[in-house]
């Protein structure tokens, strides 16, 4: 029985209702109807999920209710907050509601906080404006709220600036700020999209508690079916400005009616059941196991000097972004590299491609040590290894047509080709990645993210390289587009016997596409094994925690899931002993600053079963939440 069914209908105390609400934008290309007459309601103690892909109008719907539309937008229809009409009120009238009775938190917690004000002052300002508290009372209340959202050392945080906090901490501060005046309604717009999975799990737990303990009504706007599964009571699926399906969470997940809902559920990568994505999306049988490895990384280190003090000449401490990583890659193999932000996965990729300078170790490409080669020699080798970037629009030159961008590697490596031949090859490649060849003269800003990512893949593939590195190549895309791009990469791998380094923070996607998976933590490998081995039998506490934090788009499983927690505060990457986080028994007490000659104990990789490597760690059972 679902939560909604358990709640007798008459007791629902409606907090927010909207009838026939529409939002129209006046643009140079004519009127754009972002929201086309939708109705919804949210009751106290209830969580409503609004699910849809980018451009579905889900954010604009709630921005219009909050009176935050851009100046060329207009809202029509009816929206009521506890029976009072609030749509299109003057800002002065709306301020009686927003910020205190209804609040909104956004995706990027850094841009939502004022950078030059200390956390404490920002919180106190909200209280003094809305509640006329004295400074002492306001300070006490702010501190209390920071503790409520489980910010460790809350009193110290009050005196810190937003940039001193991690992404997860900032989002907690935002939630604390929105809760200061005991709101009846909290609108969360993609609150966890920019956060790591373990942090996302904590924020979702926090929202769930708010709903249950304080009876706050919550609207959760997201593109991620996994996020809504565990927390929402009801879900509205939004596409092209209308709700295509509404229902309880169980109805949506187990008895979807609309094709779009079914498509969303099918496209969602499943960490628990990778086979659900179908036979098309699985690593193909292309690995050349007998030949010599195509790429070998041996004890790769990349250290960045970070200025930590000193006056004129400064004192520098190395930031160990990548600290002794070794692996090898066969022809036709996909190695997935996962880890949370700051674990060094992107730096590792750039080190392998020689886009950053190694501080130690070596990279051997097809039998030749790249360190021995000069810069022009490496430039000539770039024909054989290419990279696909995370943000499709940022990785294309805005002043070049997509045809020119795709042709660029060709012009560099095959200067003998005639312009007509180059054009023909570009067109051929465009067809292969699913772009219309007649778009050859268009500019990147005319395309969607998915289409631009296809351009990026076409550019990487045009020289038929032996290896491509995908650095979060599908992370910025909608799930349906993500599935298409994954299929495209797998098809290309089958056709050309391509090797791939697939870097992602998304463990579900990595499971779908990789032959082997490597987990990084603070620049070091903690576990490396075959794809099924690592997910079915994770040995390292960090891997176990990561896997348990991934939301599963299945409400029953998600509610029943046991989540593991990491011990204590995460270490600063500048701490030379950060690598001993899971092995505190080997830590030694150091003076501050630590002597430059100090070399901490390096946990070794142990082969627990053939092909399954786990970093040494103290026996540790992660606490459950």
């Amino acid at each position, binding site marked *: 029985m679902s939560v909604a069914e358990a709640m007798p209908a008459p007791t629902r105390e409606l907090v927010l209702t909207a009838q026939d609400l529409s939002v129209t934008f006046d643009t140079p290309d004519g009127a754009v109807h972002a929201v086309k007459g939708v109705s919804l309601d949210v009751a106290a103690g209830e969580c409503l999920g609004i699910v849809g892909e980018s451009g579905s109008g889900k954010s604009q719907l709630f921005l219009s209710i909050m009176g935050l539309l851009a100046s060329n937008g207009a809202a029509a229809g009816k929206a009521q907050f506890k029976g009072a009409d609030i749509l299109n009120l003057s800002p002065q009238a709306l301020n009686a509601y927003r910020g205190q009775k209804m609040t909104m938190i956004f995706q990027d917690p850094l841009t939502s906080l004022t950078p030059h004000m200390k956390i404490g002052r920002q919180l106190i300002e909200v209280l003094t404006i809305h509640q006329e508290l004295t400074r002492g009372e306001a300070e006490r209340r702010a501190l209390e709220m920071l503790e409520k959202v489980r910010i460790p050392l809350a009193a110290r945080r009050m005196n810190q600036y937003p940039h001193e906090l991690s992404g997860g901490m900032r989002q907690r501060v935002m939630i604390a700020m929105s809760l200061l005046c005991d709101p009846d309604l909290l609108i969360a717009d993609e609150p966890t999209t920019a956060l790591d999975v373990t942090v996302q799990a904590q924020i979702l737990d926090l929202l769930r508690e708010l709903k249950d303990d304080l009876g706050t009504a919550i609207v959760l706007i997201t593109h991620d079916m996994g996020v809504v599964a565990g927390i929402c009571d009801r879900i509205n699926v939004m596409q092209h400005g209308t709700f295509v399906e509404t229902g309880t969470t169980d109805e949506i997940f187990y008895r979807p009616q609309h094709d779009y809902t079914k498509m969303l559920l099918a496209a969602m990568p499943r960490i628990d059941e990778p086979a659900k994505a179908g036979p098309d999306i699985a690593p193909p049988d292309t690995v050349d196991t007998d030949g010599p490895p195509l790429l070998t990384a041996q004890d790769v280190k990349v250290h960045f000097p970070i200025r930590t003090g000193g006056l004129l000449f400064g004192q520098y401490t190395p930031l160990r972004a990548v600290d002794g990583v070794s692996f090898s890659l066969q022809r036709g193999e996909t190695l997935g590299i996962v880890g949370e932000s700051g674990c060094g996965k992107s730096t590792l990729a750039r080190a392998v491609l020689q886009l950053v300078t190694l501080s130690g170790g070596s990279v051997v490409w097809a039998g030749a040590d790249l360190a021995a080669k000069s810069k022009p020699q490496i430039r000539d080798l770039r024909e054989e290894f290419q990279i696909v970037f995370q943000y499709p629009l940022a990785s294309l030159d805005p002043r*070049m047509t997509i045809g020119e961008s795709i042709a660029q590697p060709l012009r560099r490596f095959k200067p003998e080709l005639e312009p007509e031949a180059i054009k023909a090859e570009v067109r051929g490649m465009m067809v292969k990645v699913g772009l219309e060849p007649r778009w050859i*003269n268009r*500019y990147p800003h005319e395309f969607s993210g998915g289409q631009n990512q296809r351009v990026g893949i076409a550019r990487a593939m045009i020289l038929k390289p032996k290896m491509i590195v995908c650095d979060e190549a599908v992370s910025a895309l909608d799930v349906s587009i993500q599935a298409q791009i994954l299929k495209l990469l797998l098809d290309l791998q089958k056709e050309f016997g391509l090797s791939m380094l697939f870097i992602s923070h998304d463990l579900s996607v990595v499971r779908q596409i990789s032959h082997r998976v490597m987990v990084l933590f603070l620049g070091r490998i903690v576990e490396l094994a075959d794809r099924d081995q690592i997910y079915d039998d994770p040995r390292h506490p960090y891997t176990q925690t990561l896997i348990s934090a991934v939301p599963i788009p299945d409400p029953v499983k998600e509610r029943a899931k046991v989540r593991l927690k990491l011990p204590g505060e995460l270490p600063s990457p500048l701490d030379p002993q950060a690598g001993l986080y899971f092995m505190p028994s080997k830590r030694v007490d150091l003076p501050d600053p630590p002597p430059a000659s100090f070399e901490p104990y390096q946990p070794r990789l142990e082969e627990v079963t053939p092909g399954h490597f786990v970093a040494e760690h103290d026996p540790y059972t992660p606490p459950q939440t």
Partner: protein
Amino acid sequence: MIFPWNRRTATLMEEAADVEGRSLWDDAMRRLRANKLAMGSLYTLGAIIILALFAPLISPHAFDKVSFICGQILAPPTMAGFHPFGTDGAGRDLFVRTLYGARISLAVGLIATSVALTIGILYGAIAGYIGGVVDNVMMRIVDVLYAVPFMFFVIILMVVFGRNFVLLFLAIGAVEWLTMARIVRGQTLSIRKKEFIEAAEAAGLGRLQIIARHVIPNVIGPVIVYVTLTIPAVILAESFLSFLGLGIQEPLTSWGVLIAEGKDELETAPWMLIFPAIFMAVTLFCFNFIGDGLRDALDPKDR
């Protein structure tokens, strides 16, 4: 009956319609056209340039000859003998002289700005893109040159090489490029961090190729705006030098020279100051409004 060429034309037209798309430049032009102030300035400036180019050819007077039709120095504006702006202290027609001055002032503005533009873009892009020690050394050189007083620099040039028309362009250009280099360097620093530069590196391009193909085209937007602000600054600088007697020599003239002469006759013949001053002020306003319009039009946030 289907003619094969008909079908071919049809597909070609179809392709053309598809290919067109809206480029960044089209977008910018559309926004610029919507800006009435900028467009009005553009037309006014065009009219001044056409006048400066052609009016002296059709006028009955020469810029350096005393006019005897009227036979009078310091004549007020009169249509008798066609002296719409009057004559100056030597009896020369002021209308022709003002337009000759426009030729010189606009030429100084455009040529000195081009000198500044070329040096500034190359210098700034190289310093910003290569970075590190190279950047530090190159920008400290700029700082040192900034510290040299402009007038002192020009006077030394004049003393060493003598008063020379071309030297004027070079002297002004050599000072204006410093700011241009700083602007381009700043823009390059932000562009260097973009992923598409890394993509070009990963595609095997060398430094100079990346600067030429990716960095410079992307700094052009802010640079164009700065150029339209530099041209008036250069015209003012030339006026200033001529005013002090370091610029253009008689009988050639520029707006700065005319204004300097006009100020001496302010009480007896105010038209000698008023007409060149109006032309100069209108031109400077035009360049500034066009600069504002271009800045708004090229701002991608407006899209």
